[in-house]
Structure formats: structure tokens, C-alpha cells
């Protein structure tokens, strides 16, 4: 069955080419430009928006089984203490305002009053305390994202509209982290079994957002309707339906036939076909995400910074962006993405131009000698290693391109392609790998402590196992500084330092392509999953 699935997914790229040719032959006429999505006009109420998801969601933001397909609905119905603002900085959600104590060891959040759950029961600080003290901070429950709150000791109810997060160390990014998949869940419904209540996770959960679940039909769809108890302005849309469509090509066909209102175009190869369709608009959106190549630091060959720098010079990243992302991305040289505009340092973008000769020079400086066959060697052994390839997204073609690039400078890479689940076990759980490509998506804050600090090497999210006291120091400084200017200065240093030392080899910052009906308005210029926090503002123009 897995073999079948593998063949199926591998062939799907091929299929797309064939089907696009075919649809071009059979397809309807294709008018040129479509109106811009930000077309003016006063919002009107009514209508249904349909959004595809790839599998049945788990409607509980903290369930370890709430995978990426669950993010859409969970962000639409559950509200956090904060949410990502349209500039990605933390914005008020259930909290109106927040302050940190002078010593930085606690944060106090003032909650909105008069908020009700979708079942009419009042929301209060007790629900926030329950979500954290009884769910997230309970190690035996294994709640999703609990690692983000390692600095949180406990949450104290100050009064029904005020909560205080007490910390074991300074954590300036807490308001940003609370905006990231940290929806508050109802104590009065979930106190018995917070993460495994099926009638909630797979049924009709109780939530506080502008929409609530109307019906959950396993394998088919989840429909949302207005939450009559919502504290804010009444949302425009009558209904939002999430249909379960596992196949990416079927999703595209559904967008073309008008069955889908808005979707993420994961298969960027189809972008031209979609652009030429009438009634559809294609937009690109920023993501807080970057692709990287991890070189396992337990392998002595990779501990020399010159080797890591040589590899970055050797990999033609612009060519990767062009061929696998169709140009929707930019070169990365640090973990802070351009989407975090307040912190991102654009001057680093040209730090490592594609330069195979320089790569060879750097390898020579690191003590590697080119053999007669052109392959670098040291102590009589060729520079050869295996890259594990997880079968997901663009990873397979990217690895093939990197293999070619490294071969050109005299480094031999063998590719070991693996089914995703087995790949995670080998590379992430057991760390039994030499080199591997993957990506990180993180909360909209430059605090990348969990992915870089030496305490996370080997078992946490520090995949390469890179350990560096100076980097540790910068990471802690960033968490300790509470004012924006100080943080900007620290993270500018961190970007410069990581671009020089290359704990991971940074590859590129991807952009998301969204396809939407030209009648859909009010969608903010954020990644579609982030836009779910603003579903109440979406509206449909009358045709």
C-alpha cells in the first residue's frame, strides 16, 4: 500500500503536465487579466466560501494529532490570547492589552470582558489558566507545541479578566508565540479529557471565534456558520465549507470548475494554467518559513565552517528557486525571513553568490585535495556522504539539484529517498543521518532559540546538533530584551553571525501562492492559514 502511494505521489507531477496539456486542448476560452483581489466596494453580507483541506482535521489546537490540515479551521474558530497582526506582529485577540514585569519574569494579559463561548457560557481567565496549567504544561499529555512554552512555569488567574504568565527565564517573544496555534479551549467542556474528547475534536467543538462548526462529516467536509455569541462584529459570510480533497490536482480542477473559492497552490507547476483561467486570481503571500540543509555535526567533516561555506557557494540556489518554486521565493542566508520585515536584514541576501570555484578554494583551504578524478579527498578517502530525502513537497527535486551542484565541485552525494514517516524516525528521532534538506515554519517572531540553542542539540529542534556558546548568548539576549529596538539590534547580530557560521546551510525563503475567486474580497495579504484569523472580514461580491 505504501509502495502504491509512493508511486502515486511520484507520478502526480508527471500527470499534471499531461493533464494541463489536455485541459489546454479541451479547456474553455481564457480571457486575460482578472481584476485585482483588492477591488473596491462596500462589503456585503451573504454567500458561502469553500476551501479545500487534504484530510480530516482534528478540531483542537493542542491535540498531537492536529496536523497541518487542521490549522485552517482551528485558526478560524478558536481564538488565542493574541493573533498574528496583518503586519505579523502580535495583535489583540482574546486579550486587549499586555505588559511585562520590570524583571521580565512575568507577562500580564488583560482579557476582553463579555466574551462568550459558542454554547453561550461565559469565557473567563479560568479558561486560559486551564488551557495552559491543565493541558499545555502537563508533560504526560504531550500537547502539541508545548515545547514553545518551556519558559512558562504556570498561569495565574489575577481576576476574571486578567491572567499572569509566570516564567522561569525571560521570554520576550511570549505574545508572538501565543498568536501561533495557541487557541484557548473551554474548561467547562474539556476538563475531563482535554485532548481526546471525540465529540469535540471530531464533532462540534465549543469555541469563541466569529464562526463555529455547524457539521463535521468525516472524510467529506466541515462546515462553519456564524457564531451568534461572538463578541465582535457579525461576519459577512453565511457559511464557510472546508471540503476534504486529498489530491492536489483534483483541488486545482475544482478551482477551475468554480467548486473552490480559495486555496493554496502547493503544486506551483500549475500556476500558469490557473492564471489563465477566468474568474480566478493568483496572488503570492509571505511565509515565515525557510528551507535548509542540515549537516550532522557529529560528522567531523562538517564541523569545519569552511566546508559549510563551500557548500553554500556550490549550491545554485537561484536555480532551485526558479525550477521548483517557479521564482516564488528568495535566497536565504539566515533564519529570519523577509516576512518579519521589522527584523529582516536584506543586506545579507548576496552574501554567498553561486561560485563553484570559490567553493573548491574553500574546500582546499579546509585541507581537502582534489584527486585525479576531480573528487576531493582527505587521508585517501573521497568526500562522499548520503543525503536522506523525505518524500514531501519539493524535497525530491531539490535534493537532486543539490546532488548535481555538489558533484560539479567534486563532492559525491548519494540520495536515500524515504517515506516521510520512516524518514522522521531515522533523521529526526534517532538523528541517524549525515545530511538532509527540510524546512522550518515558526511563530512570527525572530526568537529562533528552539532551533539553534545548544540545549536543543541531539533531541530538540536543533537538527544539525550545532553548538556554539556565542550563538547561545545571542539567543538568550534576544529573549531577554523586551523593547523592540534592542531586539532588532540583537537579531541583526544573530543574522550576521548565523550567516557566517552556518549552523544550518540556509537555502531559500519560499512564498505561498494562493488561488482565489475574483469575487472573494477582504482577505488580508497573509499566508492563507494566517488569514483564517481574519475570516470574519472576508466577503463575497455579488456576481
Amino acid at each position, binding site marked *: 500500500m505504501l509502495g502504491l502511494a509512493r508511486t502515486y505521489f511520484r507520478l502526480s507531477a508527471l500527470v499534471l503536465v499531461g493533464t494541463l496539456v489536455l485541459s489546454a486542448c479541451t479547456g474553455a476560452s481564457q480571457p486575460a487579466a482578472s481584476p485585482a483581489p483588492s477591488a473596491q466596494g462596500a462589503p456585503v453580507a451573504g454567500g458561502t466560501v469553500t476551501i479545500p483541506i487534504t484530510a480530516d482535521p482534528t478540531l483542537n489546537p493542542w491535540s498531537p494529532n492536529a496536523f497541518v490540515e487542521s490549522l485552517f479551521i482551528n485558526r478560524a474558530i478558536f481564538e488565542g490570547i493574541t493573533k498574528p497582526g496583518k503586519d505579523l506582529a502580535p495583535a489583540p485577540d482574546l486579550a486587549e492589552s499586555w505588559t511585562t514585569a520590570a524583571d521580565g519574569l512575568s507577562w500580564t494579559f488583560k482579557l476582553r470582558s463579555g466574551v462568550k463561548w459558542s454554547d453561550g457560557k461565559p469565557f473567563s481567565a479560568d479558561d486560559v489558566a486551564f488551557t495552559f496549567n491543565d493541558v499545555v504544561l502537563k508533560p504526560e499529555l504531550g500537547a502539541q507545541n508545548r515545547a514553545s512554552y518551556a519558559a512558562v512555569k504556570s498561569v495565574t488567574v489575577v481576576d476574571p479578566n486578567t491572567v499572569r504568565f509566570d516564567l522561569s527565564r525571560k521570554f520576550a517573544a511570549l505574545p508572538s508565540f501565543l498568536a501561533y496555534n495557541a487557541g484557548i479551549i473551554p474548561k467547562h467542556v474539556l476538563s475531563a479529557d482535554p485532548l481526546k474528547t471525540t465529540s469535540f475534536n471530531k464533532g462540534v467543538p465549543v469555541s469563541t471565534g466569529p464562526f463555529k462548526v455547524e457539521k463535521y462529516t468525516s472524510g467529506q467536509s466541515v462546515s462553519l456558520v456564524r457564531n451568534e455569541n461572538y463578541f465582535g462584529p457579525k461576519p459577512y459570510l453565511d457559511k464557510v465549507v472546508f471540503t476534504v480533497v486529498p489530491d492536489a490536482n483534483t483541488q486545482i480542477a475544482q478551482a477551475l*470548475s468554480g467548486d473552490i473559492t480559495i486555496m493554496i497552490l502547493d503544486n506551483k507547476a500549475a500556476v500558469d494554467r490557473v492564471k489563465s483561467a477566468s474568474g480566478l486570481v493568483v496572488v503570492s503571500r509571505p511565509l515565515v518559513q525557510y528551507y535548509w540543509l542540515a549537516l550532522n555535526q557529529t560528522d567531523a567533516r562538517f564541523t569545519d565552517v569552511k566546508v559549510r561555506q563551500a557548500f553554500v557557494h556550490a549550491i545554485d540556489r537561484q536555480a532551485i528557486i526558479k525550477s521548483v518554486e517557479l521564482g516564488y521565493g528568495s535566497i536565504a542566508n539566515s533564519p529570519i525571513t523577509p516576512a518579519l520585515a521589522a527584523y529582516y536584514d536584506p543586506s545579507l541576501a548576496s552574501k554567498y553568490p553561486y561560485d563553484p570555484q570559490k567553493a573548491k578554494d574553500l574546500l582546499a583551504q579546509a585541507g581537502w585535495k582534489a584527486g585525479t578524478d576531480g573528487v576531493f579527498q582527505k587521508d585517501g578517502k573521497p568526500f562522499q556522504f548520503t543525503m536522506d530525502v523525505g518524500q514531501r513537497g519539493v524535497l525530491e527535486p531539490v535534493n537532486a539539484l543539490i546532488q548535481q551542484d555538489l558533484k560539479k565541485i567534486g563532492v559525491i552525494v548519494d540520495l536515500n529517498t524515504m517515506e516521510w514517516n520512516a524518514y522522521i524516525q531515522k533523521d529526526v528521532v534517532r538523528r541517524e543521518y549525515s545530511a538532509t534538506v527540510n524546512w522550518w515554519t515558526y511563530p512570527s517572531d525572530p526568537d529562533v532559540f528552539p532551533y539553534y540553542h545548544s540545549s536543543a542539540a541531539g533531541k530538540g529542534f536543533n537538527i544539525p546538533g550545532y553548538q556554539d556558546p556565542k550563538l547561545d548568548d545571542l539567543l538568550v539576549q534576544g529573549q531577554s530584551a523586551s523593547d523592540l529596538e534592542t531586539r532588532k539590534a540583537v537579531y541583526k547580530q544573530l543574522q550576521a553571525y548565523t550567516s557566517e557560521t552556518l549552523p544550518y546551510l540556509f537555502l531559500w525563503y519560499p512564498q505561498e501562492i494562493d488561488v482565489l475567486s475574483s469575487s472573494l474580497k477582504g482577505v488580508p495579504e497573509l499566508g492563507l492559514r494566517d488569514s483564517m484569523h481574519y475570516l470574519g472580514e472576508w466577503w463575497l461580491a455579488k456576481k
Partner: protein
Amino acid sequence: MVVGQEVTRFLLQRLALGALVVVFASALTFFFVNLAPGGPASVMRFDVTAEQREALIKAMGLDRPVPQRYVEWLGAALHGDLGSSLLTNEPVATRIGDRLPNTLTLAGSALLISIVAGIPMGVVQALRRGRAIDHVLSLVSAVGLAVPVFWLGIVLILVFAVSLNVLPSAGVTSAASDTLADRLAHLVLPAVALATTILPTVVRFTRSSTIEALHEDYIRTATSKGLAPWTVVARHALRNALIPVVSAIGALVPRLLGGTVVTEAVFGWPGMGRLALEAAQGRDYPLVTGLTVVVAAIAVCASLVVDVAYTRIDPRVRLS
């Protein structure tokens, strides 16, 4: 009465044997899937720490040895409890029960299409052996056998849902109108796509067994008696020609169920095939085992039905 006793004894024997097959399949699956690399999707996430993994493994009871877990599973299964899904915490029986009718509808429709279209096609080919129509239908069969279902599925969607806009592209029903007509409209494309996985085999079996039957002495006798050619074919040749076809169809049921995995993914059809794919990818051990048991039971039943059907078609076949 003797015949009745014989049938009962035969059925009981076959059922006992079938039950053994199912238990054996469950044991094989349980051990293989538990020993496969990887683990439950909640554990094999990129963004999960070692500490969370340990807590989850313990909470799911996966820290205990596999043989012990199998014995416990089998004990509960014999009492009708197939355990709980690791991905959703719902009972496995509920998850399968939700999806089984959809898969049976889809697979049943595909089987019906294959029989209704395949047998006449095969007969026509046999009667017009070597002529143009025979070659054309052979070509159609060969293409049908060679074309992957997921490709055909997407093509069908692009032609009938996108370009012609006459049929829905995916799902079992429209959110707005859930009527029988709406459900049938949704069924057409996936059923046709799935039928192509077995239709060519049905056509070929029918063709070759009909050709064989047409060479039998009794056909010559019937023809020389002056019977109309169609009567000869329908009354005499087909009846014998169908015997190997029936057994082939029985053997095709597992292939049909395998085909649902891909068909259901392409057409967003909420059936067992898609559930099986999700369960395998997410290493949902109890769900994979439960699905295998159900599919094994279906396969056993299908072969039983074929055996019984044999005795109806061919009086020479005795139940023994």
C-alpha cells in the same frame, strides 16, 4: 434433503477456514505494521520533542512488547472490539463502519459496470474474432489496463467537470443538495475510473472462454439443429463460457478494493481505501489491522459467493 445437508456442511467448513484466514491475516498485519519503520503520526512529527514523544508512546501503550499487544488485541477483537484509532481516538469499528458503505457502493458500481459492459464486449469480440471490432476492443482493453487510475481520474474530472461541466468533480454529495440524483451524479466518474482496473480482465476472460466454448461439440450440435446463432450463443455457449469468468471476477475483488485506494484519493471519495492510506501513512496500527481484517473478510466472502455461484451455473460442480 441430502443436498441441503451437504450445502450446510460445505458452508460451515468454508466459513471456519475463512475465519482462520482472517485471524492469520490479522496476526501478519499486526506484526508487520508494528515492526515497520516509523511510528504513529503524532509521534513522528518534525515539531515534537523527545520528551513529548516519550509521553505519547506511553499514553498509547506502545512501550509494551508487540506479542503482548497482539494477544490483547485478539482477545478484544473476538469480543467485537477492534480497538481505538491512534489518530482520532475513535473506535476502529466506527471509523470503518462510517466508510465501508461508501466503498461498497463505489466498488459495487465498478463491478456492475465491468460485468454489464465487459461480458457483452468479450462475447462480441469472440463472435467477431479477427475482425476490426475485435481489434478495436482489444486495443481499448489494452489501453484500459495500461492507463493508471489516478491519471484517468484527473482526465475525467478535467473533461466532464471542468470543460463540459456536466458532472461534479469530487465528493459523494454536494453540500447544498443531497438527493439520490446528486449522489448518483457524484458516483459516475469514480465508478467508471475504478471499473477500468478490472474491466479489461473481464473482457479478456469472456472473449477467450467464449471462443473456447464455441469450439465445443455441443455448439456444433446446436447449430446443426438449426437454432438461431444468438440462441446458440446465449443459451449454450455463454452459459459454459461464464464459468471461468465468474471465478475470475471473484479473484478480481481484492484488486478492486486495492484500486479504491487511489480512486478515492483522486475523487475525494470518503471510503475505506483512503482511510487505509491515511492509516498506513500515519502508522495507525489498530486501524490498519482492523481494515485488513474487514478486507480479508470481504475477500473470503467473495470467494465463498463465487463457489456457490459455480454450483448454480454448472451442475457438474459438486459441493465437496
